């Protein structure tokens, strides 16, 4: 590939590293992005950024070292720092970085029609604004961003993988009196987002919630939107599937393989090759080929996620779950396209308290699963229709217990980036009214 010609220094780096350490891994990122921001209905700011970064990991006699920099020309200093860092680490069982696999290098989440142009960002904002006009609400803020990123992974066993991905994201905030609405969308492809719908929804929630009234404390059947459900899953449930947390005693799921952890209808898996999904990749952040992982099958816990470090330490195999937040730091355990699925149905025929979003889900107790959050844009629904909005109320419960009381999954599916899921109906949850 053409790009490899420009990065011949990586081979120099690897040769240099091999003089002092057993193995070395190089992760390099280059990207461009553009974004535009709305203040009320006017575009007030346009930004472009050029990012570049280099992360180096060295392994010597089971000691893992790392460093990063955004000046690639100074890779020698960065390599020195990585080797020095390795000398501090406690040695661990280590079976080596992966060698090269014959993987296709055609990108899975790249849109050639997506150009990183300010004018496109502005058009996206304008389309959102027109969508928001359908409702009686004022836009307070919004943003639209486009990006393209080139990623390169190389190691001393001959791995030379490259990938290119694109991204587009939009969000809009609206208000009516003291009622707010927020909506967003993101994808790797320009034609996979719907900015008009984002604007319409933000306006809808702001204007409709304005008529909200208080409700008494008590037990209610809930309909959590994919967004609200993802907040609870992402802050508590998904971290408990992390192999490292499991073996370290920091996961509620430790020792529970083969046991029920959710209602029978629920399955949860990571599918890194899902067509059209934003997290799709053929290799993980350490160069391990990715594959589908079935974490929960029909309510039964079947697997945990591992990267190489955790797998070697506890005598398991990497599940290809290594991910990086950026070029800096070490790879950790993550997921690619986490899908929640099961038998679908209509959930809003009978009266139910529908919740669009939550405030404060990150304050949940990640170990015990207890949470207590404020509702955002909650409504009673019946016969498929939004009815009385709720002004303000708290939801308290336990994320782990809640997944045993699932009444059904909706017919909708929302792609929230790295999580793809429907809405969910849950029996008898405690609401604290005002």
């Amino acid at each position: 590939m053409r790009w490899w010609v420009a990065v011949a220094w990586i081979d120099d780096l690897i040769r240099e590293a091999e003089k002092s350490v057993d193995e070395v891994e190089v992760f390099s990122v280059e990207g461009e992005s553009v974004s535009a921001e709305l203040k009320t209905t006017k575009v007030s700011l346009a930004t472009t950024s050029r990012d570049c970064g280099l992360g180096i990991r060295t392994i010597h006699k089971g000691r893992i070292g790392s460093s990063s920099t955004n000046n690639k020309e100074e890779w020698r200093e960065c390599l020195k720092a990585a080797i020095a860092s390795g000398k501090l680490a406690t040695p661990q069982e280590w079976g080596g970085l992966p060698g090269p696999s014959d993987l296709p290098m055609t990108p899975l989440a790249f849109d050639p029609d997506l150009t990183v142009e300010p004018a496109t960002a502005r058009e996206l904002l304008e389309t959102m604004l027109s969508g928001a006009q359908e409702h009686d609400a004022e836009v307070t803020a919004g943003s639209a961003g486009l990006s393209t990123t080139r990623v390169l992974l190389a190691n001393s066993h001959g791995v030379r993988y490259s990938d290119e991905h694109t991204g587009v994201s939009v969000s809009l905030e609206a208000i009516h009196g003291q009622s707010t609405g927020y909506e967003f969308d993101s994808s790797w492809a320009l034609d996979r987002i719907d900015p008009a719908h984002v604007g319409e929804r933000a306006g809808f929630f702001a204007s409709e919630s304005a008529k909200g009234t208080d409700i008494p404390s008590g037990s209610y059947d809930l309909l959590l939107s994919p967004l609200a459900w993802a907040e609870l899953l992402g802050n508590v449930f998904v971290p408990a599937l992390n192999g490292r947390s499991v073996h370290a005693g920091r996961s509620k799921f430790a020792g529970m393989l083969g046991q029920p952890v959710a209602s029978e209808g629920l399955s949860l898996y990571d599918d890194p090759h899902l067509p059209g999904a934003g997290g799709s990749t053929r290799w993980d952040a350490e160069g391990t080929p990715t594959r589908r992982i079935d974490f929960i099958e029909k309510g039964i816990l079947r697997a945990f996620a591992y990267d190489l470090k955790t797998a070697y330490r506890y005598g398991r195999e990497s599940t290809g779950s290594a991910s990086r937040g950026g070029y800096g730091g070490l790879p950790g355990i993550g997921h690619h396209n986490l899908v929640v699925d099961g038998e679908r149905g209509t959930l809003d025929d009978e009266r139910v308290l529908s919740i669009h979003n939550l405030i404060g889900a990150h304050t949940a107790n990640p170990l015990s699963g207890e949470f207590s959050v404020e509702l955002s844009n909650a409504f009673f629904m019946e016969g498929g229709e939004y009815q009385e909005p709720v002004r303000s109320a708290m939801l308290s419960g336990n994320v782990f217990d809640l997944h045993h009381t699932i009444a059904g999954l909706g017919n909708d599916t929302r792609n929230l980036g790295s999580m793809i899921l429907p809405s969910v109906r849950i029996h008898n949850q405690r609401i604290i009214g005002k």
Partner: protein
Amino acid sequence: MHDISYYDLRQVTGASTHIDIDNGVVESAGTSFFNKAVLRVLVKSGWGVLQIDNYTPCTGTKFDELLQQAARLANITDEPVRLGDVLHGILPVPPVKEDPRDVDIEEKSRLLAEIEAGVVREGIVNRRANYVERDERVRFLDSSGNEYEYRMGRSGFNVLAVASRNGNVQMGYEREHSIHGFNLRHQQEVGRKAAETAVSLLDAVLPKGGKMHAILDPELAGVFAHEAVGHASEGDLIHEGNSVLKGRTGERIGNENLTIVDDPTLPEFGFDPVDAEGVSVKRTEIIRKGVINAFLHNRESLASVGNGCAGHARAMPGEPPLVRMSNTFIQEGDATNEEIFSECKNGIYLVGSRGGQVDPGRGVFQFNAEYGYLVENGECTTMVRDVSLSGDILSTLHGITLCGNERKMSPGYCGKGGQSVPVSDGAPYILLCDAVVGGSGVD
């Protein structure tokens, strides 16, 4: 050529060092380097901003080309911006007792391991400690000829203890972060405290939610000030119409005894010698004696909204500045702790913070305590866990009826617009009457 009315450039270079110890194993330790800059250019129609990784300072035609590039970007903007008149100037960075850069990483690692070992006790199944140190060199210049340069370091550690018994898993978490230099020495007690909290929580009960009187410790009361008042007073949100405090300057929002301040000049974790727009920093009384007094501003929101002080622009390295809090606190009053507990009589006492969130436009906030105790007849009784508070900004502050006579600040990080900046929050002990308490306990 575009007509550039203003530009500024902020470059941050530096290094970050981390050590992560998990159950006695040094998982990783080392140093990384960064160099990030942001160039903002103002033309008639709005802002054009370039974010540049690995920036090399330049002058002459090369710099002019960057300015023009940013100005061209602003072709898509259509909101004319005025910048408020401000004072410029820089405060000295407080001296450090011991510079972390003078301590070698092996010693840091050994000291952190001692703190982590302090967590070991019966009932503890996992312990973890991490150290973070950031050294930043900031260079600022603008088209009006202002130029500043300073170096500042922040360092500190977190320690986590996990206790488990019969499937009941609880945690204790302590953190100490400082701008005053190396703080890993003589801290084993902090590890022991985390362990004690985690083990005690195994026997704590879930409180039943509802309306009750609540006593907040200084850390949690500080988060309350930050979430319930601080964010809603940010000038950019006021300008956008996304805050319930908009247009309410001079209105009473709390009792005479309530004063809430943001002060970047305080030598606490949120200290800034100069703000990210080169504006001199200043104490701002957001609420004075129960009345909405002043908003937090950058130059743009000062010009468009007024009623407040600029000098509150802050930014992560390479990111455009936003209006942010720094050191936010409830001013101390004159009540003793005995008076606060006796006035509360029956209710709940809440300790520490697991964070919070606010919707400033709706005026609704939520935040979570680490643990607490039921208060019965003015005395702490049963320990409780997983309890949060929520409320309406415009009505809840009236519930603060007593403020203690001693204030304490706690360090933390605050997120906004995808940027995280160091802050501190603080308060004295406060009594909050008729608080809405969330908890999943049942009778």
